Structures are given as C-alpha cells and as structure tokens.
C-alpha cells in the first residue's frame, strides 16, 4: 500500500548493448587498416630465417615475391621433398623464374619498372644450390635488386 515500491533485491538494470556495435566496428576498422590481404596460398614450407640487421620493405607495389621451400605435406606425394619454387599459385622450375619476373614487371606502372625489388622468401632449410640458380636467372633478366626476406631475430638461431 505504500506509494514507493521497494525494489526487490537482485533486480539489476539490464546492461545496455547499444554501444557494442560501435566497439566492434572500431576493432574492425583497426584490423582493416593495419593488415593486408593475403595474396597467395603457400604450397611450400616457409619458415624464414632470422636476421638482426634487417631493413623494412616499404611500398608493396614495388615488390615481386618468390617463394622457395619444401612442398607442404599434401603436395609431397606428387612433388617430392626436394625444395621447389612457387610462383603465384603454382610450382615452377628454375627456368621459369626469368619469364615470370618479366611478366610481373610488365604489369607494373612504367615508372616503377626500374625500381622493382625481388623478395626471396626462402625456407631456412632450403639449400644454396637452388638459390644460386635463381640468382643466375635474376641476373639474366636484369632484376638485380633482391631482398632476402627474414624474420627479425637472432641470426644464430638459424643454425640449429
């Protein structure tokens, strides 16, 4: 009969979820700005070696990527366990590297064609034989700027 209803114990006001979308959108925009799209799925094992004296590779549009490593488990039956080169989405031979570089170079804008860098993403267990073959191919097509892409870290960890 009282005019003022006593609140029952434990009757908490509901938490407003109206600002939840805003928070999630904020997260979304954060991820959209700091990440880049993956451009190709890797078919080779690609544990990069570590190095401490690295330089950052800026400007993605000036880089051509080459991946080298052992084929991953599901491709090993077909391609064996010897190190292979991956260009875009398929395995390639050393002799294909030159034409691939020329083809990629032709796709870039005219003013960038002379400043392209070839980023070699090579598994640390690959051997130098295939690397030096690739380097010969790169020299043939005059793609002289290379970058051995590495993780930042202690270089002596590569040796184990």
């Amino acid at each position, binding site marked *: 009969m009282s005019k003022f209803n006593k609140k029952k114990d434990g009757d908490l006001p509901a938490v407003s979820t109206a600002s939840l979308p805003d928070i999630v959108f904020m997260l979304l925009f954060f991820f959209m700005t700091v990440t880049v799209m*993956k451009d190709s799925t890797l078919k080779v094992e690609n544990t990069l070696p570590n*190095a401490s004296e690295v330089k950052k590779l800026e400007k993605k549009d000036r880089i051509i990527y080459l991946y080298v490593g052992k084929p991953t488990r599901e491709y090993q039956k077909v391609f064996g366990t010897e190190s292979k080169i991956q260009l875009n989405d398929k395995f390639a031979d050393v002799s294909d590297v030159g034409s691939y570089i020329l083809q990629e170079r032709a796709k870039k804008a005219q003013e960038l064609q002379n400043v392209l860098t070839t980023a070699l993403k090579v598994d640390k267990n690959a051997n130098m034989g295939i690397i030096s073959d690739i380097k010969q191919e790169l020299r043939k097509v005059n793609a002289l700027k290379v970058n051995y892409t590495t993780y930042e870290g202690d270089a002596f960890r590569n040796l184990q």
Partner: protein
Amino acid sequence: MAKRLSPGVHAGSMADIAFLLLIFFLVTTSIETDAGLDRMLPRMETPPPLIINERNILRISINDSDELLVEEERVDMGELRDIAIAFLDNGGAPPGNKGHCNYCEGLRKQESSDNPLEAVVLVTTVRATSYGGYITVQNELVAAYNHLRNREAQRRFGEDFTEMQAVYLNPETPEYIRASLREKIREIQGLFPLNLSEAEIK
C-alpha cells in the same frame, strides 16, 4: 493530435553483423610487414677481371654442414663479426701513401686490407649449404659494416647510420629531411662501401 512515433530500429543484431565482418577480415588478412637483407646482384655482363691484391680479400667459405672457413682457418660463427670488422677497419696502407685510410682504427697490419674501399669480402658456398647458415653469415657481415658505419656516423654527425637510414627509408619522412639525410648517408656509404662478393657455385 498524437504525434506518431516510428518504432525504433532494433540495433541488437548490428553487433552480430559487425562481428561477422571482423572475423572475415581476421581470416583473410595478415599483419606481417616484410623485412630482410637488401642486396644488389652483379650485372650479367662479365666485367674485366679485376686484379685485387690477395691481402684485400677476406675469403669465407661455408660447407654443407654450415661450418665456416675464414682464410683457410676453421672459425666459429660467433667470431665472424669481429674478424670482418678487424679486416675492414685495418687500414694497412702506410700514411702518405695513396689509399691511406685516416679514419680507420684497426691494427694497420701489412698483411690485411689496405683500406675499406679496397677490401672485398668473398663468400663461397657449396650447393648443399643451408640457406639459414648463409643468411647468418650475410647478417654478420652486414652487422660488421653497420658497426663501422655507425662509428663513423657518430663521429661526423653524432647519429647512428642505421638510424639515419631507417628514417630515410620511411615513406612518411618529409622531403627536406630526406634530402639532408641523403647526403650524409652517401658520405658514410662512400667511406665503407659494401663490397660483398660471391663466387659462383660449381
């Protein structure tokens, strides 16, 4: 006359939609920024055979189990940096002679390099050398050069060379800073040019 209120849009499901988008971006993108060791390959046209004095060459070979041989001596990976610094910084040409290095602080041994401009580091690998081992060697050599360049940059400009280079390479650096840095970087690079050479694998 009662004012008609439109029913409020239910915003509860907006969070779900945003979450879906968020998850999509998380899955399809990666955060990594690439970094690595920059190197210029030599041109294909064979240059006229250079005649380099044996004392100006530091020969490093890596075998198939990633062991190092420097000037025919077995050394540990950890010692390589100091060996390279000692070799590059030697400055063996006597004062007054052509090629005397007045900024070198090395031991000035006659049997080691004349000056950093002439000094060449030659890395030889075999086909079975692992890429990891090769990168370690390259990294140590770059570290040796960076050490010397930093020392010289500190003396002349009071800044680290690697620091200047990082600022220079950052695309957000304004042009007027880059222009002044370019000069300094060129000067230091002129004092310690990166003379790394590789023998072709047979």
